[in-house]
Each structure stands twice: as C-alpha cells, then as structure tokens.
C-alpha cells in the first residue's frame, strides 16, 4: 500500500520529533522557503566555516509531516559535511524524489542512505513532492546566500 511507503516509520518519527528544530548557535547564514500552495514554511539556519564545511545546521518552520520530516532529515544528512559534497548529495536526493532513482553517492553512510530513501514514497504523490524538497532547496539557498525566499512555485 502506497500510504505505508509515504508515511514510513522514519518519517513519522522525524515528523513528530524533528531534529535540529531551533535556531542553531552562531549561525552565519540563513534562508527562508515557502510553499504557497500548502502554506508550508521552513527557515534554515546554517553555520559554515571558512572552508565551507557545515559546522551546524537547523531549521524552524511549520507544515505537514512530510515537510517537517524532510527538513529534519536534511539537517542530519548535511551536518558535518563539506558544502560541495552536501550539494552533490542534495542533487541526488532531488533526482531520487523526482525520478525514483536510487542514491548511489558514496559520501553518505548506509544509514543516511536509508533515511533519505525513506522519502522516496512521495514520488507516487505528486502534490506532495514539493513538501519533501522545500528544506533541501532552502539549505542551498542559505549556503549560497540567495536573497529571495525559496518558493516551490518557482523551482522544480
């Protein structure tokens, strides 16, 4: 049943108890994301060091289980990684969500891979894809210091 694929244990857990849902200490970059269709909002806070390594990352926001879980998972995945690597991972993640492909990049642990893949169920729910991708886009926007709010109507 597709619903079980969508609302996997991992997602329900992250949705209910999102990790890193706060303003992280000493963040030096941030960005907002917005999904005008649903009203989902996410605000990403990011601490990059001079070598562009993600020292810390967190988010605030409100939205459906998918968007909150997705934001929570995103913070776990990218924290501690170099931004360039994080960007590659995110690119694979977005392709996975859109096209149902596997994640093959070897910069993520097996565990991380499983966690990211827990969001693969949204592919069968086209109206929910944007919920799953919002935080990831917003992270990149924060790191690259784009001025505008990420708007799911403008991306994807």
């Amino acid at each position: 049943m597709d619903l079980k694929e969508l609302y996997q244990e991992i997602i329900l857990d992250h949705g209910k108890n999102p990790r890193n849902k706060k303003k992280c200490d000493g963040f030096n970059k941030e960005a907002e994301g917005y999904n005008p269709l649903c009203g989902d909002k996410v605000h990403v806070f990011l601490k990059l060091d001079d070598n562009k390594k993600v020292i810390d990352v967190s988010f605030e926001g409100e939205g459906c289980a998918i968007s909150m879980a997705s934001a929570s998972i995103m913070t776990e995945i990218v924290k501690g990684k170099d931004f360039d690597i994080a960007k590659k991972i995110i690119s694979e993640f977005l392709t996975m969500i859109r096209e149902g492909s596997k994640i093959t990049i070897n910069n993520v642990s097996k565990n991380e891979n499983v966690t990211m893949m827990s969001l693969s169920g949204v592919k069968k729910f086209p109206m929910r894809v944007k919920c799953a991708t919002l935080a990831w886009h917003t992270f990149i926007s924060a790191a690259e210091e784009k001025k505008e709010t990420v708007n799911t109507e403008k991306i994807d």
Partner: protein
Amino acid sequence: MDIKLIKSQFPIFQEKINGKPLIYLDSANSSQKPKRVIDRISKFYQKEFSNIGRSVHSLAVTATNRFEETRDIVKKYINAKSREEIIFTKNATESINLIATTYGEKFIQKGDEILITELEHHSNYVPWHFIRQRKGAVIKFAECNDKGEVDVDEIRKLISSKTRIIALTHLSNVTGAILPIKKIIDLAKTKKIPVLIDGSQAAPHLPLNMQELGCDFYAISCHKMYGPTGVGILYAKKKWLDELSPYHGGGGMIEEVKKDGITFAESPAKYEAGTLQTAEVVGFSESIKFIENIGIKNIMQHEKEIMEYGLEQLRKHNSVKIIGDPKSRGSIISFTIKGIHPHDIATILDEDGVAIRAGHHCCQILHEKFGIAATARVSLGIYNSKEDIDVLSKAINNCKKVFKI
C-alpha cells in the same frame, strides 16, 4: 427525494479513486457536473455552434438565442429586475475585479474606506487591495468572532463617512457561516453605501433573490453551481452598469468606433467584450434547470441534514477540532486533527477515495486570525449522503492509525 437517483446523474461517480468509490467532499472548491450539463455542451458544439451576436446566418441566430435565453433564465432564477443586469464573466473572481476596478476608479479616492471582512476569500480582497494601492484608499476588516461569523454590529461599528463600499461574502468558504447580508444591506442603504456580495459559496446552496436583497452587486461562480468551468456571473443594478465605465475593451462592447473617440454599447454588451464562453453559458442553463428540478429548498434541507450528521460524527473524534461554530451554517465544515497536518489528512483520506481540500482555502487572513496555517475542509453537494460521512469518519480513523494517535 432520491439522492441515489440524483447522484446517478453525475457520471463521475462511476469512477474509482485508488480502487474505492469516489466520496466527493470538495464541492465548495468546484462541484461535479450532471450529465445533462455535460451533454448540453456537447450537443451545442455538435449541432448549434457558431459565434453569437455578430452574424445573421441561421447557426448564429440559434446560438445567440440559446445564449441570451440563458441570460433570461439566470435573471429569473436570481430574480433580477432586468436581463441587462446579468453580465457573464469567466468566474466570480472576474466579477469582483470588474466592480472593484470600475467602481473603484470612479468613486474611491485617497483616504476613502473599503469595508470588507476577515472572512473574505482572496478574490474579494486582492481586487480591493489593488484599488487601495492605486488610490491610496484604506481597507477596513470587519472582525470575525470565535464562531466564525461577522455580525451586523461589527459592520455598523466600522462604517464611517468615508466608507465607499462594503464588500463581503454571503457564505464563508471556511467556517460555513451565512452572514446576515440582508441586514447589512439595509444598514448600508441608510448610509447610501453600495454593497457587493461575494455569492460564490451561497449561490449553489441558498435561494437567490436580488430584488428582495437589494444589494448593488452580487458575484456568482457557475462551476460551483453544477455548471461548466469558465463562467461566472456579475449581477449589478442597472444604474451602476449605466454609470460605470466599461471594463475590457474589444469587439461587441462598442457602439461606434472612430479614430478620435469611441462610444460604448449599453449593458450587458458594454461589459462583455470579445467572444464569450458561448458553450459554457448555454451549458449553464441546464445547471439551473437541474437545481430547479430538485428545488433549492430541497437541496438546502438535504445538505443541512448531511452537514449536521457530519458535525455530529466529526465531534465524536476527540482529536478533531472544528473551526468555527456559526449559528447559521452552510454545508461547509473546516477542521484540524491534533498532531496531523491537514495536507497529511487529505492525502490519507484520498487513499480511501475521500476527496477533501486542505490548505488556507484562499483565506489567509482568517487562518492567521485563528492562528493556524491550514485546515481540512469538507464541503457538500446535493450528491452527498450520510454514507459519505461514514466513510469520511472511517478514513479519519485511518489517519489516526497511520499517525499512531
């Protein structure tokens, strides 16, 4: 009244959604269409189609007659004083924009006040916002109380010598509240302030009587009235249509065109530029016949029964919170479930074939007021039954199961 028989007139209910029968609880968004409406459109294209009002050949005569007959049918259905008061637009949104623009341009100046309510759909706020911006006017929002209603006193309080128009919904598309518009219109009359009613949600569910109401403008969305997409109606008192400037410029709305000046046709032509939604308007005549055959009173009574059953069933769920509790309620129920976001509810319900809407329903002001980003909304049509509510209720249990609540 045999609801099964009525429902069987809607072909869509033969479809399966995720393998389940369709339980359509999203009629406030757009209603489904009975076969006679769908067939009328087909027949029109197959046997009678031509552009209207311009050619003298037989097809054009037939098409023009069918189109203009619909205007008469609408006039009669809403009890307008004359057929010239019925303007066909593309949706209720255009109807409201037309008035906001033409009335606003002429009668609203810097510092003037536009009085709307916190219940308004974006379609009855954004057009006034444009006028606010262009003219330096002020928009005042009549407050909605805890029950999701706006009462006459709230309006009275906000009327000032600068109020140039009152624009408000007849029936809230979120709380379902039916506003006391007759009283508000009567009040406004004593102050000589024109009133625009956004009838998008009321028109499919309440009897309409323009002469009795006495409002200046009334906007209708035909696709919510078992009608085709692409048609809206603007009712406006003749004196306004005579007084206001035209809106869209183009073919059909002119009298005489010269290089240095143009004179315009009288309404309704004045406000109907270009090729109209001929087939859709003709199709809509069948929607009104469909409603009239059942009788709007019967529709009201049936929907009320289902709505009340729905409230009862929803209230049985501890975790369900119903938004607003208006004394007079149309067949709309918005709710939230503790711990489950409305979008997740909608997705899970859909697995059981239950179609509801989740979101801010184009009412961000109201959602902000209630401190919630989104709600789930159940809205009824004549085809709904108590069994639909039972399926809904079971599907809500499923939501809770998925989310382990």
